[in-house]
């Protein structure tokens, strides 16, 4: 029997990239949509004109009839193309910060409650339950009433209603992970509780977290859209997809495009995040990572 000697095969950069893509099979359509969202959000002011200008002479132009307004204009003659593109920016500016803050609060609460247990767990989880118990739209309305409409108000409202979902989920995961032998062993070896939470519990719940994020992004976009739709989110006239759906609602039979296009975009982005999250969960699991 010959001795087995594995020479590491040197790959060129191009080959390595191709191998990575072949091994991991990233979700191309979802990634393209997310990339376009990011690109449009960052460079909206270079791509299209002002989304706020009313042009009463060019009101309610149907889509695909005028080269200057490909996606038509709304009842005040605002260019739909510009508004749709600027809508990406409001998604980035509201969704991203609210998800990040909700995630940080929720994860911290969940880790602490799950690891400490006892009265800490009881107190934190009763607060979480209370938060989950209220209808999120109602809470958001209350908060916006106090803080005021606009970006800050919406971000605070969305954060206040979503952190509890992260906390609940993470606590449940932590409760099962903390009983496993490696956490006990780390405790025996004198590793401090903070380090146990950070090194042993966090990495084991991060998969769940990633999937949660991708699902929550969709929900947050919908919540923002609902708030704007109800007139307590972004100020009326702002280029947010939710507001646009709301504005178009009254003329749905005549100027249907005002609601339809932002609606389609919300659906696409939410789905893209879900597919991306699904893929990310598999990619982040080391057991699946090298096995393929």
């Amino acid at each position, binding site marked *: 029997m010959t001795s087995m000697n594995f020479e590491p095969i040197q790959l060129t950069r191009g080959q390595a990239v191709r191998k990575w893509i072949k091994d991991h099979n990233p979700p191309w359509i979802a990634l393209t949509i997310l990339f376009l969202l990011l690109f449009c959000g960052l460079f909206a002011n270079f791509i299209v004109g002002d989304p706020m200008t009313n042009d009463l002479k060019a009101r309610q132009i149907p889509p695909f009839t005028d080269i200057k307004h490909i996606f038509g204009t709304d009842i005040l003659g605002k260019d739909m193309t510009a508004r749709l593109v600027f809508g990406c920016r409001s998604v980035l500016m509201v969704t991203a910060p609210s998800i990040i803050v909700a995630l940080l609060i929720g994860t911290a609460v969940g880790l602490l409650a799950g690891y400490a247990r*006892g009265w800490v767990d009881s107190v934190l989880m009763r607060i979480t339950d209370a938060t989950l118990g209220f209808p999120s739209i109602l809470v958001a309305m209350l908060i916006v009433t106090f803080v005021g409409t606009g970006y800050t108000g919406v971000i605070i409202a969305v954060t206040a209603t979503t952190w509890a979902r992260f906390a609940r989920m993470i606590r449940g995961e932590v409760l099962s992970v903390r009983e*496993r*032998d*490696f956490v*006990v*062993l*780390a*405790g*025996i*070896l*004198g*590793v*401090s509780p903070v*380090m146990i939470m950070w*090194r*042993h519990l966090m*990495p*084991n719940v*991060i998969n769940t977290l990633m999937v949660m994020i991708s699902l929550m992004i969709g929900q947050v976009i919908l919540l923002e859209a609902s708030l704007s739709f109800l007139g307590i989110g972004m100020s009326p006239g702002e280029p947010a997809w939710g507001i646009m759906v709301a504005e178009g609602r009254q003329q749905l039979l005549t100027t249907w495009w005002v609601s339809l296009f932002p609606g389609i975009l919300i659906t696409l982005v939410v789905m893209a995040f879900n597919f991306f999250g699904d893929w990310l969960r598999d990619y982040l*699991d*080391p*057991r699946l990572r*090298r096995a393929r």
Partner: protein
Amino acid sequence: MSEELLLKVENLRTHFHTKTGIVKAVDGIDFELRKGETLGIVGESGSGKSMTAWSILGMVPKPAGRIESGRILYHGEDLVQKSDDEMREIRGTGICMVMQDPLTSLNPVINIKKQLTETLELEYDEDKPSLVQRAIGLLSSVNIPAPEMRVTSFPHEMSGGMRQRVVGAISISRSPDILIADEPTTSLDVTIQLQYLKLLKDIQEETGVGIIFITHDFGIVAKMCDRVAVMYAGNIIEQADVVELFDNPQHPYTQALLKSVPDLDDDVDMLPTIEGQPPDLANTPSGCVFRDRCPNVADHNPDLGMGLVEVKPGHFVDQCCVMR
């Protein structure tokens, strides 16, 4: 064998306060562990072996579990009186534990290097590269081939025996002087078992670590241990040097346990068993805990409370078997 006393457990009682009553998991045990010595604790499931270990480590599940009385003297200091923070310092540096299952004792999502350096950095105030060097050194000391390559592996990329070695390496990473091994070989196949036991012996010879070996396998006891304590229903009912215990068991329970070990030379259809069930630990009989199952109960004095008496130098048996 060196004479330095590492651990002295005196009249340790660990009870659980549950809705159905007080469960006396450990009910008044005494033993000693010296440097370089291996003490085997044998007994059936639920006899209090593991709870003895958790009591020594100060990790009795709270709030139900509580050490009711007794002292655990470690280098002359009573561990029962220590706070959680003080115990955290003592665990790892002084007393460590190897658990049953190598598959779950390692964190599946971080690599071996991180898991080893995590404890090494508590022990040594050094920069990352030298900690990694120490980690590689530890892996080679537990006979892991190609440790430089293995150190970046994830647990799932290793075999069961290799994982158990890595767990061993982690356990000795802070060079403890007491190692508690709680059935560390139950989930390994027999050849790997043998290798692992040899490894533990080698570590002991090199470092002089005192090992408390919890098992129910008398084969392993014979191979590994210097002294043996037999536990039954939260009590130590017999304690002796390993040769003495195998040759001259005094307590009927120990005798029955030894008889139930299968022997290749004898052709038997049925192994002997002990009549009855171990007592409910929330409701143990008064006097001798073994009285309901004891074949010689008529000759004994089962109303005598539990307590060891020395029948020969170094050989202790529960008093009800001896005092008539």
